[in-house]
């Protein structure tokens, strides 16, 4: 249903090929840990940016098969270890894709917890059922064998790569690009002129489906653009 605002010729001769990469992450245990919400707030302020990234963007990948009820580790801990469903809902509602910097994302979480503790000071020092251990990721980017020089090859690449590659290009890319977009949409828009398809990709809700579903949705949008 895509209506590309470009000529077919341009759509099949991109300026540069799309190289499908993926990233591998190794989990590092940091020094921060929280046994209650007051400590949690301190840790949110002090932890390395890699920890914020790990417990939001990365955890999406680690639990990519879950359709509902899991959006980030902070919300999950607030619910199951602190028994604070209201706080958990606020934390879970943070869409990591709305942030192009981890620093801004950190500030959003700090704000939510600060506001909650201001409203509910008694919760600050109530012991959590489980300790929250802040972790971080060491990352290595890995090329895959898929390179797209045409839209058809792009669709083939999408079908062939793992969900880790989808996470790398579609979800984590905004931190690299510093744009409210992703590698796929950027390439479709800038190199193929498929602006409508690029926009459709950006509307996919990653929080209500699995990453495999996300991959299938992206593939379908690209396949429709082929017609």
């Amino acid at each position, binding site marked *: 249903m895509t209506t590309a605002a470009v000529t077919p010729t341009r759509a099949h001769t991109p300026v540069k090929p799309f190289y499908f990469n*993926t990233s591998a992450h*190794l989990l590092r245990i940091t020094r921060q840990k929280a046994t209650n919400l007051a400590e949690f707030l301190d840790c949110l302020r002090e932890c390395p940016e890699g920890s914020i990234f790990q417990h939001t963007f990365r955890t999406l990948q680690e639990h990519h098969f879950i359709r509902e009820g899991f959006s980030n580790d902070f919300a999950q801990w607030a619910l199951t270890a602190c028994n604070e469903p209201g706080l958990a809902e606020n934390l879970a509602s943070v869409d990591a894709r709305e942030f192009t910097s981890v620093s801004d994302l950190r500030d959003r979480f700090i704000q939510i917890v600060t506001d909650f503790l201001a409203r509910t000071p008694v919760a600050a020092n109530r012991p959590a059922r489980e300790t929250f251990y802040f972790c971080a990721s060491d990352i290595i980017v*890995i090329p895959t064998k898929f390179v797209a020089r045409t839209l058809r090859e792009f669709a083939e690449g999408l079908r062939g790569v793992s969900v880790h590659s989808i996470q790398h290009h579609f979800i984590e890319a905004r931190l690299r690009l510093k744009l409210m977009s992703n590698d796929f949409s950027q390439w479709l828009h800038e190199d193929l002129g498929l602006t409508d398809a690029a926009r459709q990709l950006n509307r996919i809700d990653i929080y209500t489906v699995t990453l495999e579903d996300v991959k299938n949705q992206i593939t379908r949008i690209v396949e429709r653009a082929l017609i």
Partner: protein
Amino acid sequence: MRTSMEPVETQSRAETSTQEFSGGTTSSAAPTAPRVERRRKPRSWETPPAPVPPPRLDDYRKIIGDAEIDELRFLARELKGKTVKMVNSTAVGGGVAEMLNQMVPLLNEVEVNTHWDVITGGNDFFEVTKAFHNALQGSEFKLTQHAQDIFLMNNEKNRQRIQFTEDFIVIHDPQPAPLIMGRSQSDQRWIWRCHIDLSNPNSEVWGFLRPMVEKYDAAIFSSQSFARQLPIPQYLFYPCIDPLSEKNKEVDESFIQQVCDEFGIDRSRPIVTQVSRFDRAKDPVGVIQAFKQARKYVDCQLVMAGGGATDDPEGAAVLKEVREAAGDDRDIIILDLPPWCALEINALQRASTIVVQKSVKEGFGLTVTEALWKGKPTIAGAVGGIPNQIIHKLTGTLVHSVDGCAYQMRYLLTHPEFAKQLGENGREHVKENFLMTTNVRRWLLLLRILHSSK
């Protein structure tokens, strides 16, 4: 359908009473022994099966997919020709040796030349290391100068015996930790892989070991909670299962049926199973109590499959308690199996409607991983490494009491769609995080990260 065994006489439910089987040649003093004798023992009970060769990386392709295998090979490319030495304290028995038996060939296959050495020592050394092991996991211990001398002297002998010329030296667990003291090449990278729970160590023993651990370039722990505050990077490597092992590989439906027939398990009714040693930490009596509560509301059978009662006095005592708790309940099937019955355990897990691991103290809980991998809705105690595997109501259910366990049994048995979804999520969670291939990836990543930090 049975393939290799003679048909067994099937007992009707009305005829059965609490059913008990004892592995090996030891016969149990089961009050219902005459009924047990009506069934054949699977041949595998009597002799351990021949060891199987370790799998190759491509054998995992069907399980994790082409893209994942390609990623592993790419990660290894930059390490081609690099050398690794793994050192631990035993060549056979125990989870570390089992893991190294599988991991070392896979690393060699991707041309990361990996060698495995085992330290040696006298009885006095291993008595000290066992005491250290227990103390580091929280037991009381008085650290004497004599114990320190034995520990250091034996490690020094091993240091002189073993060559440490590789690019990466990986020391497993506290026993060989002092080998780092002989480190000479500055561009070598030394890694301490700690498989035990250091969350509440004996302060004297940890105080003695800590200066050695701090000399390493990195440490690896099996859980966030096991780590200590150290000045070196600490990484998280979850324990893992091998999906191609006897315990976890796919098995024929006919074999599953055969095993159930052998053990008198009625597959037309729901089956609740706990697989674990007869150990109070696994709360087997609590499982029976929960089962009895749940069965008031839903028809089901309970299979308690374990081992360790034959050669462990405490295990035998726990088994006795389990039998007493079961009484003459005809729906409770107690199996005391020898350690080589991996394939039978596999079949029992696959035959189960739900799996329980109601531990009250646990390491990582690999029986939970095994159950999740088989797509089984799993109920488990929220202890040790289990919450890393079970996200409550998403990949399984966590419980904290007998009552909670009973409720979850009832709920999952009466909500099969929800149970099915938990099972599917649980399998994906294991595929992503707790398979042997995930750990190959972690090792390759760590070696690359440390290599690039030279």
